[in-house]
């Protein structure tokens, strides 16, 4: 048989439960615009019933838990897409700087310097003793050399710019790793005490998503409470409450920042995120472009020098080098050819146009023109090689842009899905609020009725 007092205590438990629910609703509304906040739901539980003379009487209500609404699988997918998208868009940004160096679509680049040089030779062939035309050949040669210098220097500048971003990214990664470790620690100790950790887990998810912007990571939840994070195919970043800081150092040969984990150089293994994208630009694309540019410069230097050496200058002296000669390294690399390209001759009379030593002969200029028409590099003419060079550069940017755009759409889609699970809807909170308010009012009414009944009992029984 029930008692008035147990009714009172059931009503009290309802008041408490509804109060908690209102507080959770208030917290949701307060964080409606907080990035990374997962909406919370109050989960109520029926109080354990007690058996009384064969009757099972309810034990009121209690708050079972406060749940953060989160789809962990979706979050993992979102993180992995974010890593991909961030890597691609960083790559595209980096490559767009390089595109600007060779933007033949707007007439920027080496094409006009190349054709200008060959044109100047053509012009001289029609009037080989003309000193103005000879000077024009020197000017065009010098413009070509400067074009190569400037392209090479700009490539280097782009590489150092990217290098600085690499160093900055590593600092940010370390900072975020420490945050994850510290959140792991808090979550573990709270859970050990049996307390809810939904909000902290939400914060940790947000930090992991920021980390995914920066670098490709793998996360493993060993158990519910702690997340292990690794980078570059298995190097630890966070294990439990411990963050393993990445360190940096300059490569002795290239001067480029290298990334170390526990003393091991992991630079080449890093993929994903803005760091992955920047490393791809810095360590793969730029060196490759630089190499092509150097090879083209070296080939032009050698061939033009050889053409000039086969003839005679205006004064009938045998011709020599036209550009400052370039000697490849012992390993055969042309590194530095474009950056150091310069005129060797400075006097217009030294252009060896003549094939027989007479001032008016243009016979040797054919050897110069052959430099234009012959396949002097990789089985192609200099100009075809350059056309393919810019074509390939544009192609890699355009492909990456398309992929970045596609990955961006996937990320947006997943973010949308995530928000549909975790986002705070004010309408929903308002209906909850009404529901809790009504329940609270009803419970308060119960308290009041039980109070009346109790008074009635006390008053009437005392009077008799």
């Amino acid at each position: 048989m029930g008692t008035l007092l147990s009714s009172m205590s059931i009503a009290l438990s309802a008041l408490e439960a509804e109060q908690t629910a209102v507080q959770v609703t208030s917290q949701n509304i307060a964080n409606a615009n907080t990035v990374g906040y997962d909406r919370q739901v109050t989960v109520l539980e029926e109080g354990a019933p007690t058996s009384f003379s064969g009757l099972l009487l309810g034990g009121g209500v209690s708050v079972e838990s406060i749940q953060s609404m989160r789809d962990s699988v979706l979050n993992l997918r979102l993180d992995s897409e974010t890593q991909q998208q961030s890597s691609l868009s960083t790559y595209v940004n980096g490559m767009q700087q390089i595109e600007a160096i060779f933007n033949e679509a707007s007439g920027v680049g080496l094409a006009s310097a190349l054709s200008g040089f060959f044109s100047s030779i053509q012009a001289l062939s029609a009037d080989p003793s003309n000193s103005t035309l000879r000077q024009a050949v020197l000017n065009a040669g010098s413009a070509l050399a400067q074009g190569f210098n400037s392209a090479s220097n700009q490539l280097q500048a782009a590489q150092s710019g990217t290098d600085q971003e690499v160093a900055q990214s590593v600092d940010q990664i370390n900072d975020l790793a420490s945050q994850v470790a510290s959140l792991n620690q808090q979550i573990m100790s709270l859970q050990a005490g049996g307390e809810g950790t939904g909000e902290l887990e939400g914060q940790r998810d947000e930090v992991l998503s920021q980390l995914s912007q920066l670098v490709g990571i793998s996360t493993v939840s060993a158990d519910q409470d702690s997340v292990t994070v690794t980078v570059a195919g298995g190097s630890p970043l966070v294990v439990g409450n411990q963050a393993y800081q990445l360190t940096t150092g300059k490569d002795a040969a290239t001067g480029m920042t290298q990334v170390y984990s526990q003393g091991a150089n992991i630079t080449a293994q890093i993929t994903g995120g803005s760091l992955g994208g920047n490393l791809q630009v810095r360590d793969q694309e730029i060196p490759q472009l630089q190499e092509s540019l150097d090879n083209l410069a070296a080939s032009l230097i050698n061939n033009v020098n050889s053409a000039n050496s086969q003839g005679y200058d205006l004064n009938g002296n045998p011709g020599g080098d036209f550009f400052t000669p370039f000697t490849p390294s012992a390993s055969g690399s042309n590194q530095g050819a474009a950056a150091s390209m310069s005129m060797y001759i400075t006097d217009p009379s030294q252009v060896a146009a003549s094939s027989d030593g007479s001032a008016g002969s243009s016979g040797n200029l054919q050897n110069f023109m052959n430099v234009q028409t012959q396949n002097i590099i990789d089985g192609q003419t200099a100009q075809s090689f350059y056309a393919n060079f810019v074509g390939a550069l544009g192609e890699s940017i355009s492909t990456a842009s398309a992929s970045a755009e596609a990955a961006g759409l996937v990320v947006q889609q997943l973010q949308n899905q995530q928000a549909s699970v975790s986002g705070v809807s004010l309408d929903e909170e308002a209906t909850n609020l009404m529901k809790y308010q009504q329940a609270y009012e009803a419970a308060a009414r119960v308290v009041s009725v039980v109070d009346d009944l109790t008074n009635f009992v006390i008053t009437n029984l005392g009077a008799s």
Partner: protein
Amino acid sequence: MGIRLNPDLYQTVLQGIDLLQQEENNDLEQMSSGKRFNNLSDDPVAVSQLVLNEAETSNVNQYLANVTTLQNSLQVADSTLNSVVTALSQAISLGVEGSNGTLNSSDEQTLAIQVSGIKDQILSLANTTYNGDYLFSGTAVTTQPFTEDSSSASGVTYNGNGSTNSVQIGDGEYIPVNLSGSQVFTPTGSDVFAALQGLVNALQNGGDVADATTQLQQVFSRFNTQRTFYGATLSRLQSTQAYLTQEQLGLSTAQNNIEGANISSVISNYVQSETALDATYQAAGLISQMSLLDYLK
């Protein structure tokens, strides 16, 4: 209960506005530049073609410039040789006059002086320069090709060389652009100066004037044949010029086809994006600022 949606409607709207603005930017860029692309990555294949097109255009422009340069110097050479022809005809007339047997020795001396004057005139023509270069010294353009030389039978020595130049006027197409002075004026057996000197000698010394005149006529006809080289080259240059101008036009059309924007379609795209953007803005404005919370009392 229905499917829960992303409660943040603004996010979706913003993404839409972003995309539309990007498209508008792209269209505006095309309209202002008149080009279909402004970056390498917009159309790498086309830019690659553009580079090769520019190389070819630059060549053709230079071929055309060369043709003009050559036309100028060849015209000077051709008209110089025309004057030589006139002078030689006069000398032949004088020879014919001297060989009719009715002239006395003093008349013949006068004729000899006239022919000698013509020889000096031709010598001076053979030393014609263009832009400071001798036209008839082979490739030794800084050396005066013909000088008076009393030790030589003709009274004139050739100091130039026998070389000639070729100039490129098309891809792989070279055209010889000069004859050496020795080819034009002093080929063995047809030496212009020797023939003139022979006539002078015959007139002065009572020699066989008729025979000397006949020899001069033979030299003259040989000379005439030689000099057609310049006329023929000039006319070849003229047709080359016409062809190159055509090619220049073709290359410029090709360039326009590669990079020119289709302005009418760009404008129509722009208008479409603008309409869509406008609609999105309006929709964004209509998203309710209120929620159920506003109705709680």
